[in-house]
């Protein structure tokens, strides 16, 4: 009967917030995941329905990722252009909307070069590692109450474990290319991601402490009275800033794009990649940016949870009119825009400054923040506790 016992807990939907006497959990925020739907179908011996859910979910994920990649490439180029007083793609379709499609077709049809001296197997595998890490992280992403693939009990731990996966791809790609610049880039990326993983996880721990759960849906529901970024007297804000800095570093985006460093390393780890394989790296980078933004939104900005102010019933009711998916998309787009804004404003750090920033500044700050956060949680001294 209980086939996937860790995943199956029929009673979790009855979550109830502790704010006042208002019932928000049960009727409004019914959380359903794809895994739960499949499981339900299996329990009802409805294998066709389970198959449809499985196949549909898979197809929808891949389609969403591809579409998101295209949209993001276009968005990045347009946003960059407007930061720089120019127009960006204009000539393919209306305001150049077909530009990423042209790029995609071109990359797909390009000659695929594997250098003679490269380690063929690893060279071919490396981009797929990047893509794999990306897809694993998508598994626990709560997009809206209805759209989530699987709601793991240890979602945060899974995320922390999986988010370092992409570095395997970078490392393998850099090493197998047999190019000194690639090697330097890969080494930088490895050092950078291993270091910043620490403060990234510490920043997440603060939220885990406040919400008392490792589960994505519960973390979001714990923000029904307000988002953690402002409810905790600055602790949340500091954790958010640390998370943003660390995730920019994890993403290898400017100002932390040392592993690519176009003006230093001529492309870094993907110097030797061409055509479709380079396209996969490109795609993984952009999707990872969305994922980092989405998780920042989930942990600190309430995910799909509308903007609530404690028990102000009237205000909250107005906010609830906006569907959760829109909230999620809005918050994620804001974060994505923030990342782009950083990229097109700041110069790049040097490699030793990068390490110093992590070990001498971010790590102490996030540790102290964690302690303060623990005190805040224990004393219950935060808004709408």
């Amino acid at each position, binding site marked *: 009967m209980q086939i996937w016992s860790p995943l199956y807990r029929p009673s979790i939907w009855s979550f109830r917030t502790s704010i006042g006497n208002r019932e928000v959990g049960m009727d409004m925020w019914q959380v359903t995941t794809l895994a739960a739907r499949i499981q339900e179908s299996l329990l009802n011996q409805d294998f066709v329905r389970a198959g449809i859910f499985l196949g549909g979910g898979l197809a929808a994920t891949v389609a969403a990722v591809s579409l998101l990649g295209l949209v993001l490439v276009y968005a990045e180029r347009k946003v960059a252009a407007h930061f*720089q007083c120019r127009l960006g793609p204009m*000539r393919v379709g209306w305001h150049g909307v077909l*530009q990423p499609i042209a*790029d995609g*077709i071109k990359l797909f049809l390009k000659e695929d070069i594997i250098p003679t001296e490269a380690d063929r197997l690893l060279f071919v595998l490396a981009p797929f590692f990047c893509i794999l890490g990306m897809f694993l992280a998508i598994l626990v992403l709560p997009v809206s109450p209805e759209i989530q693939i699987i709601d793991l009990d240890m979602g945060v731990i899974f995320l922390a474990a999986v988010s370092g996966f992409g570095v395997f791809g970078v490392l393998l790609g850099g090493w197998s290319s047999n190019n000194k610049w690639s090697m330097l880039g890969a080494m930088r990326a490895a050092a950078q991601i291993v270091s910043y993983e620490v403060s990234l996880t510490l920043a997440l721990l603060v939220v885990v402490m406040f919400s008392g759960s490792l589960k994505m849906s519960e973390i979001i529901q714990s923000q029904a009275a307000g988002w953690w970024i402002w409810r905790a007297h600055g602790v949340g804000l500091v954790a958010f800033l640390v998370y943003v800095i660390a995730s920019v570093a994890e993403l290898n985006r400017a100002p932390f794009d040392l592993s690519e460093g176009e003006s230093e390393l*001529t492309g870094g780890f993907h110097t030797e990649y061409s055509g479709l394989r380079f396209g996969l790296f490109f795609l993984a980078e952009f999707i990872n940016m969305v994922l980092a933004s989405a998780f920042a939104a989930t942990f600190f900005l309430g995910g799909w949870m509308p903007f609530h102010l404690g028990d102000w019933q009237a205000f909250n009711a107005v906010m609830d009119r906006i569907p959760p998916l829109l909230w999620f998309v809005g918050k994620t787009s804001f974060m994505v825009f923030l990342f782009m804004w950083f990229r097109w404003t700041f110069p790049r750090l040097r490699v030793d400054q990068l390490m110093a920033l992590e070990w001498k500044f971010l790590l102490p700050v996030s540790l102290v923040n964690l302690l303060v956060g623990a005190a805040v949680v224990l004393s219950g001294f935060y808004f709408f506790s």
Partner: protein
Amino acid sequence: MTGQSSYVLTSMDRIMNWARANSLWPLAFGTSCCAIEMMMSSMASRHDLSRFGAEVVRPTPRQADLLILAGTIVKRMAKPLRVLYEQMPEPRYVIATGACTISGGPFTYNSYTTVRGADEIIPVDVFVPGCPPRPEALIYGIMTLQKMIKTGEAYGQPYQRRRPITAALPPGMTQAQLQKEIAEFLEAHATIDVDKAAHNNRWEKERY
């Protein structure tokens, strides 16, 4: 390549050529003065080449489609340039901008190092005269290249490109007249066999 068959483009070819023509990522390569004007057009805001989808300047030749030869090529640079060209994946296009890369320009005579024309080293698709050409001229050159890609490349012959000489007719001349006049010429010279041209390095042969 015989007869009319290669002139007929399938719809697959059309989509492919459309994509290739509109996504020309240039290689960050510039040796001298023309590079400044190339930066003025390809990157800077005023003439913004990103409108053509060509602002993604790649620092590594593996990811580039378009080699804009900006600036004089000297003998010592000839070998690195050849390596750069060979590192670029097919399809790769070359635009020679400025007098120096077309024919040596001001350094044609009495110079012991300047290569007289980059097409002695690598096959060149479009020549953009000027010293240096102004950004609009370079954009015009890129449009010329786009025209060539859109009309002249077929899926079946990935390493052969047709130069669309018929695409630009002199005034007062019909296509039939021109075709009659240049039929032989087209047969002999209108296709670049990239492989052949790349190995047809006249300058090196002369030296050794």
